[in-house]
């Protein structure tokens, strides 16, 4: 065992219910390590914000316990938890200047005035807002307000920074820019971040680990690469990225590879992370970018003939809808180029993919 990362926050069998009937968070066991960027990703209502609110102390834990540095947070009020929070609507104080907003946590901690000035100015420089300290929040653009909120959550060097869909209100371009900036800040400051979003792109680009939530349960925790390339179940496969799925039954297994007979009668070779028995029903997951049109002959074990149903132009690539294996909703991404330009509706093409990119999952 080498270099085990130090656990900062641990959720132990945490449950949360509002009405006493349905658990919005169910049997949550999760660890957040020091210096880690962990994203809770899930559709709205999946319980991810509730987890953040429980961690921050704004919602009581119904059962189980949350620890910070191995100490239970059960009786620690929010104002003693030392967590920086960035809210979706920023929650800047409209009656205070930018400087006063950022200074607020320091004033509460009774830090001497000169030190406050120094720290606030450093924080504002860090988020590129030097010189705007005298403005009011409503005199700033959305992106600038976001930076103020960020500076305010970071200036007192909290144990962990919680961000609840902080970029939700920004337009696409600004959002992408802020994603990179937050990521860089995370790297520079070596801070621990728990980030909540429903935007899978955001989760994949920013996180060290992603926890995918649905119906109050964690579906999978892993690196962005793992959750995208090796989805643990059908929900994860469908929620992250685009996904083609085929239904069938396991015909035979050898090592990690299975032969699956689809309902259409075709046989597909695919990989399985867990051992499967013959005759078991299976769901195959295949990313559109792994489905090649006119595949090169070598190394591609799965090969089908398909009919082009629709070609949608996306600039850098074309999105091609294919009819194959008894289905007409199979999507492939064809990079722009002479070959994809030649694709036309009604044309019959050869498609294929290699078994390692096709995952066998348990049906939902």
């Amino acid at each position, binding site marked *: 065992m080498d270099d085990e990362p130090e656990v900062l926050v641990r959720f132990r069998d945490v449950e949360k219910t509002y009405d006493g009937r349905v658990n919005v968070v169910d049997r949550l066991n999760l660890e957040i390590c020091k210096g880690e960027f962990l994203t809770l990703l899930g559709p709205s209502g999946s319980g991810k914000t509730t987890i953040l609110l429980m961690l*921050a*102390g*704004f919602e009581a834990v119904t059962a189980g316990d949350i620890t910070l540095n191995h100490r239970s947070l059960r009786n620690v*009020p*929010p*104002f*003693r*938890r*030392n*967590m*920086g*929070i960035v*809210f*979706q*609507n920023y*929650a*800047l*104080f*409209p*009656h205070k200047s930018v400087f006063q907003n950022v200074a*607020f*946590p320091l004033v*509460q*901690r009774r830090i001497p005035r000169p030190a406050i000035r120094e720290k606030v100015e450093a924080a504002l420089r860090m988020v590129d807002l030097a010189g705007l300290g005298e403005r*009011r929040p*409503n005199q700033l653009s959305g992106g600038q307000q976001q930076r103020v909120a960020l500076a*305010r*959550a970071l200036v*007192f060097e909290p144990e962990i920074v*919680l961000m609840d869909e902080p970029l939700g209100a920004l337009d696409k371009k600004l959002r992408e820019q802020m994603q990179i900036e937050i990521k860089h800040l995370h790297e520079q400051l070596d801070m621990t971040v728990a980030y909540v979003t429903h935007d899978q792109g955001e989760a994949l680009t920013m996180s060290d680990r992603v926890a995918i939530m649905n119906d109050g349960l964690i579906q999978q925790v892993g690196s962005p690469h793992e959750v995208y390339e090796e989805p643990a179940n059908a929900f994860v496969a469908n929620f992250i990225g685009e996904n083609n799925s085929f239904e069938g039954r396991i015909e035979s297994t050898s090592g990690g590879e299975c032969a699956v007979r689809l309902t259409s009668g075709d046989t597909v070779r695919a990989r399985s992370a867990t051992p499967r028995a013959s005759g078991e029903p299976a769901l195959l997951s295949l990313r559109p970018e792994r489905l090649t049109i006119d595949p090169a002959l070598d190394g591609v074990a799965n090969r089908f003939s398909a009919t082009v149903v629709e070609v949608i132009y996306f600039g850098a690539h074309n999105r091609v809808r294919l009819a194959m294996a008894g289905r007409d909703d199979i999507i492939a991404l064809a990079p722009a180029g002479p070959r994809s330009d030649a694709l036309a509706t009604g044309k019959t093409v050869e498609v294929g993919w290699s078994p390692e990119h096709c995952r066998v999952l348990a049906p939902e």
Partner: protein
Amino acid sequence: MIAPAGTAGEGPAGPADRSLEAKLRRAERRRSLKAFLLVAPLLLFIVVVFAGPILSLLYFSVDDPKLAEVLPRTAQTVAAWDGAELPGEDAYATLVEEIRSAYADRTVAAAAMRLNYEISGFRSMVMRTGRKLRRIAGPPYKDALIGLDERWGDIAYWRAVKASAGPYTTRYLLAAVDLQRQWDGSIGTAPPERTIYIEYLQRTFWISFWVLACCIAIGYPMAFLIATSGKRWSRFLLVLVLLPFWTSLLVRTAAWVVLLQNKGIINDFLLYGDIIDEPLTLIFNRTGVYIAMVHILLPFMVLPLYAVMRNIPASQMRAAASLGAKPLASFLSVYLPQTLPGLGAGCILVFILALGFYITPALIGGASDQMLSYLIAEFATRTGNWGMASAIAILLLLSVAALYPIYRGLVRGGSFRLT
């Protein structure tokens, strides 16, 4: 002719710009005309029912036509008189002649009434003089009149006539602040039996202040509860606040009379529960006035506060807590400042409305709980002294106007507007 270099370049652009400007002006003019037509009915309404009465109020408070109407030449004569010594035979002769004819026309009472404001008893004195004037056959009128009533030889009475000569007077306005004009034109304090107005003004402010304090103490937490509780609860609570609002003021006040009286529901309940042995005196005293006024004015505090609090997101307090602020510090430095515009609006509404309260103190209060409006009503309806009624009304109006800058300051103090 050679054009200056500077204007040569502007030449071609000039006319086009001007026509664009003209077009803009035309469009603006049309829009403002339309806007004016839309507000015209309101404007007319305000002028007729608001500005008009206030202006007439101002006028009534200085208007003093009675003596000049009834005894025009006497008024002229005393106006020219310096007031240092008793006037001469001419003045007496004019007075006798005018009182005689006015008495015959039955118009003398109005002038006598006016003179009575200056010195009480003057009215009956003039009326008696009118009645007995038959006895005076001819000059010298001065001695004859003094013979009729020796007070005509008292210079104070003549000075009173001079003060009433009109056509305009400051006596009502001065009286409203316990002052009076001396015969030589200087301003001094009124005699003690007439210095009641400042006391009423102080009492009015005092009662309004305590009503306001109670409204804040009850209304602020209530508005907070309404703004932060769930949808169904908040709607229910809001109806509770609004329900009394939809009932007539008179009905509510009468209801309080029923509730508060010695054999009323509250006392019955307390007696029945053995909480008290003697019925509490809740009516015809200050306590009752406070209870009823706070109840009536509470919505005016709760509603503006609620409007502001509703727009403060819950994340504000959460943010404050997450940044390390204890609950009280969060409230004082984050929540309270953001509610100031609503609090200011509520305070101004409650205080101004309280200043003008009449019915409630009149029905529930005792003699020492009456406010300025009571005096206005008293003068206007009972004694018919419109001058005094108007002057006190102006005093009330000025008190309210003095509060306006405070309100502006409070609303502008926050960088955001009331919504």
